[in-house]
């Protein structure tokens, strides 16, 4: 499949429309087509693209922006971004009005309760894995504890915590 803006956009529209979950699923998906079938990217480039999506704030799907740029410059970046995110807007618009109805209907409310608590369970699992990767030495453990106190007791705003933690981390890495 030749590289073209049309093919690029169509590909990311597809990804945005059918991809559940995140992380490894995205990697496998992108690799199958972009690297193995069409050769638009090398494995190295794909891994770097995923890393960029993970490292930057906001959605990890901005990996698409990176890939789009590498493959087809600025227009590619913008179209890939539009492609991967547009379906979400449609899905949300369609599903949003249904939610209060689910909540009101006896059976469906039970289903929703189950899905909600399952989502929590998945979130807890991911947090554990994040914790194992993040809390690796006395500094990080200390930061984690201090942040926990600040968040639970003092209700300090996330932005300050992220900034503070970031600065402490950088200082330790530079001077520690």
């Amino acid at each position: 499949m030749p590289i073209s803006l049309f093919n690029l956009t169509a590909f990311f529209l597809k990804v945005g429309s059918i991809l559940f979950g995140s992380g490894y699923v995205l990697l496998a998906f992108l690799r199958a087509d972009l690297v193995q079938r069409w050769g638009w990217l090398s494995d190295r480039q794909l891994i770097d693209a995923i890393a960029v999506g993970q490292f930057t704030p906001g959605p990890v799907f901005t990996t698409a922006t990176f890939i789009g740029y590498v493959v087809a410059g600025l227009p590619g970046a913008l179209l890939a971004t539009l492609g991967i995110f547009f379906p979400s807007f449609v899905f949300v618009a369609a599903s949003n009005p249904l939610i209060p109805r689910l909540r009101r209907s006896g059976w469906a409310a039970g289903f929703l309760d189950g899905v909600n608590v399952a989502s929590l369970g998945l979130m807890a699992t991911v947090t554990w894995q994040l914790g194992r990767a993040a809390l690796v030495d006395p500094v990080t453990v200390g930061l984690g504890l201090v942040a926990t106190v600040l968040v639970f007791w003092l209700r300090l705003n996330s932005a300050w915590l992220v900034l503070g933690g970031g600065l402490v981390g950088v200082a330790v890495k530079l001077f520690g």
Partner: protein
Amino acid sequence: MTEKEPGAGQPQSGVPVTRSVGELARLFLKLGTIAFGGPAAHIAMMDDEVVRKRRWLTRGQFLDLLGATNLIPGPNSTEMAIHIGLLRAGWRGLIVAGSCFILPAVVIVLALAWAYVRYGSLPEVLWLLYGVKPVIIAIVLHALWGFAAKAVKGPITGAVGIAVIALAFLGVNEILLLLVGGLGVMLWLN
């Protein structure tokens, strides 16, 4: 007790749409800039801002939206932003909230991509997040605490929650766990 449900497409309060849209833009641009750590962190921060601070939604409503985004394709945290925007200021809010959440990341990624193409590799910047990651853990734990208080309604939901955690660690597919969890609670309670 029935919770007041915001109708989709209508602003939630008497606040005029233009003011709501401005608020949404500011909030989600901010979140899009500081939300490191993946979807769990994004959602935790959104809960803090939208449920705790601004009380635009109750925790129950927020959780329902979260469950719903898990059932549709696409990135969950972005979809949460879009839901919140829609409920707060109609279709304009939908577009603005989602776009503003995505925009800061797009700008940063574009800069990194430009450097990548020019210099051939990524800059060594991963170490910058060394101090941020532990903080993110604290933020997510805080949100989980609040969520669990609302989502665990009794022994059934509690059991499902624990089972999902155990099975997820064993590598069972996430979507499967969500659907089985949903069906499990639905059938048990009815």
